[in-house]
């Protein structure tokens, strides 16, 4: 009997351990599967390729993570990315200095984030609907900018950010990793980071404890706006074109990655590192789909099945009850 209980406690302990690293384990499993499906998968160039491809949605996902941590959601990230991408490329095509164009475009993203954040906090509206509205409105504004026409002929100083490499390593990937680290440190080791979790976990208790709940939410959305803007600029730089249709639907990928990464849509639980891995997971899946040449209709079906499957498996292994 005593032995039974001890082993039970041990199992529970093991599960706790597993809970901590489950995502990394999942990623490794996926990588092993992918490698066995195609010998092209585990090559330096393909791996760097995956990182390059993930960096835009990866950066958006980081901002999304902060927003979801405070129990919000940001559907406008794709539109914001497109808007800022257009703004930067328009300015550059008007021969403004690259840096200045980028700064203005990021500023535009910050404003959109502020608007989202204000209405979702001080304004007291659900962020889902606020950002749905800005998603639609900002996309419209993006088309108005150039009447729907893309901007080509960008300076190589600009396109370098998105297409360049350090050695073989893509610069955009490096930027993504750096931003990940910064946001990770903020979330773990600063007051603002702690407040993110508190506000997401229990806004009322946080308010009564003197946390500026609305302000914390406002900033989370602003960060999301800024990062989306930056991602949009990176995308334009990578594609060497400013496109008003860019990044359509990216919000869903970002949200999926955040959830796969273990952050709760109800706020207060999860974190940056999980989202980073979540993005990589999704990228590995699409990459291997393409490498094995799976037809695109089937890709959709499998993608859906794999997402739910991975979450269920994780849930089962971690042994959580609903």
């Amino acid at each position, binding site marked *: 009997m005593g032995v*039974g209980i001890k082993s039970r406690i041990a199992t529970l302990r093991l599960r706790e351990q597993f809970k901590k690293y489950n995502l990394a384990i999942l990623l490794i499993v996926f990588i092993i599967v992918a490698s066995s499906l195609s010998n092209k998968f585990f090559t330096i160039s393909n791996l760097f390729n995956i990182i390059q491809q993930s960096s835009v949605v990866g950066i958006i996902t980081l901002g999304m993570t902060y927003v979801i941590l405070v129990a919000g959601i940001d559907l406008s990230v794709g539109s914001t990315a497109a808007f800022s991408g257009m703004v930067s490329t328009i300015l550059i095509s008007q021969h403004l200095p690259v840096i200045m164009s980028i700064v203005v475009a990021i500023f535009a993203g910050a404003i959109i984030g502020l608007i989202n954040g204000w209405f979702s906090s001080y304004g007291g509206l659900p962020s889902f609907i606020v950002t749905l509205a800005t998603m639609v409105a900002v996309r419209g504004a993006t088309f108005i900018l150039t009447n729907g026409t893309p901007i080509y002929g960008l300076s190589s100083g600009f396109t370098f950010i998105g297409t360049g490499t350090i050695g073989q390593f893509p610069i955009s990937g490096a930027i993504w990793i750096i931003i990940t680290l910064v946001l990770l440190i903020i979330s773990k080791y600063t007051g603002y980071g702690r407040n993110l979790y508190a506000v997401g976990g229990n806004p009322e208790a946080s308010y009564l404890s003197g946390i500026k709940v609305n302000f914390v939410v406002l900033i989370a959305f602003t960060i999301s706006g800024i990062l989306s803007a930056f991602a949009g600029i990176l995308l334009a730089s990578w594609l060497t074109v400013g496109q008003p249709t860019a990044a359509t639907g990216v919000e869903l990928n970002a949200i999926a990655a955040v959830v796969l990464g273990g952050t709760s849509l109800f706020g207060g639980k999860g974190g940056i590192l999980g989202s980073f891995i979540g993005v990589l997971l999704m990228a590995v899946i699409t990459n291997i789909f393409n490498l094995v040449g799976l037809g695109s209709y089937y890709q959709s079906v499998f993608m859906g099945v794999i997402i739910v499957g991975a979450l269920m498996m994780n849930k089962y292994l971690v042994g959580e009850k609903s």
Partner: protein
Amino acid sequence: MNKDILSMKSVTKCFPGMKALDNVDFSVCYGEVHCLIGANGAGKSTLMKILTGVYSRDSGEIVFKGNKVNFSSPREARQNGISIIHQELSLVDNLSVAENIFLGQNNNFKTVNWRHLYNESRSVLQSIGMSTIYPKELVSNLSIGHRQIVELAKAVALDAKLIVMDEPSATLSGAEYATLVRVIRDLQRKGVSIIYITHRLNELFDIGDKVTVLRDGKVVATQRLTDTNHDELVFQMIGKKVSNQKVIRNSQVDAQRAVLEAQSISTKVIKQLNIKLHAGEILGLYGLVGSGRTELLRVLYGIDQPSSGRVLLNGQPVKLKSPRAAIKKGMALVPENRKLQGVILGLNIWMNATVVPSRDFVKYGFLRISDIRKQVGGMMKRLNIKASSSNTLVGNLSGGNQQKVVLSKWLLKKTSIFLLDEPTQGVDIGAKEEIYRLIYSLASSGNSVIVASSDHEELIHLCDRILVFYDGEIVKEFIDLDEASAKILESAVVGR
């Protein structure tokens, strides 16, 4: 000997890293009021959750009405005639009182007869003597005490054979407690068995037939209440003698200095209230459920804005627009609804304890995490918080231990005016003494404290002065606490 309606044998339950129940034997007779006591975290709620199908047990056996049972959900337990009032209130805020009373009794495939529903609710409320609660009212508009009453009505409405009450009296004051006792007697007369959990040991002798004491997940004793006494129970609960002599303090009220003052404050609930809190004073607020104590504290703390009147701090009029503003002025609030307003269940102990923004916790913009954890660890020892470490999620703590975490966040913040709303609700007797000691030392070092409590003995024990609330007004002030112990109940009920 009476036959057992319930018998639980060798029940064991583990949580990650700890054993919450260890071979517990527990049985209840037909028509018996069986009390269950133990320090915070002893495993009382866990045992009841296993009984009612909320948790599954690791091993052991449960026999109910002669049959081996293994309820896999609360629904099954209810269908078999067991109802429970959980320690944490479980009502649906945005539904009416009537719907909450009959929550879970709607058949998905049948129609709802609203008139019938309201009539039934009215008669249930009447039967427990609380016809002042209106069945169509939304629960979100009720004070926490009234919610507790609705929980009682809900448990009664089920027609159960066994009712578990997990700390039903924690936020009830004298008159409502009397109602509760009457309801329990009625039920007992009808042959219903009751398991009653409380930290107010006096209540046991009012209503209990037998008592079982749990300590660290083990049964220490089961005995008839006529065969034991207060001190013995305390000894069994905490495993050591508590010095019977109450903590004595020499109060050092500076009656010349009013640190906090409210002048003819009114809101929807309270009317033209005037109070003064002096430096070094412990001021008690007593009253029936819904009399307006919480409402006053909310205004003082800047949560609600008064429709008229003003608040003065150290003689200066202030307009506190938010709790944050109040905190900046040195105020602290321990709210009455721990789960919704006090703790953040998904965060661990140290994060909860340091959730109040403070310069002390940061250096160069970064949190001084190891220092914070050292401080929190000290506080956990001081308050005897039962947890494996400060990394434990607060959601996994027992109710009383959660309450201690809420207290610790203000002790760490070092404020000067403490507003405590039911500060010892759910706290065990050992820790209660510790909290009293803390409140004393706060006051004697020049801080001021307001305690709103439904436990008049607690107030008499703690305070320098007690104000009695009745229907949003202060109807009586007791400076002589001996007089208070004789008259406070009456005063709260009749409003004079």
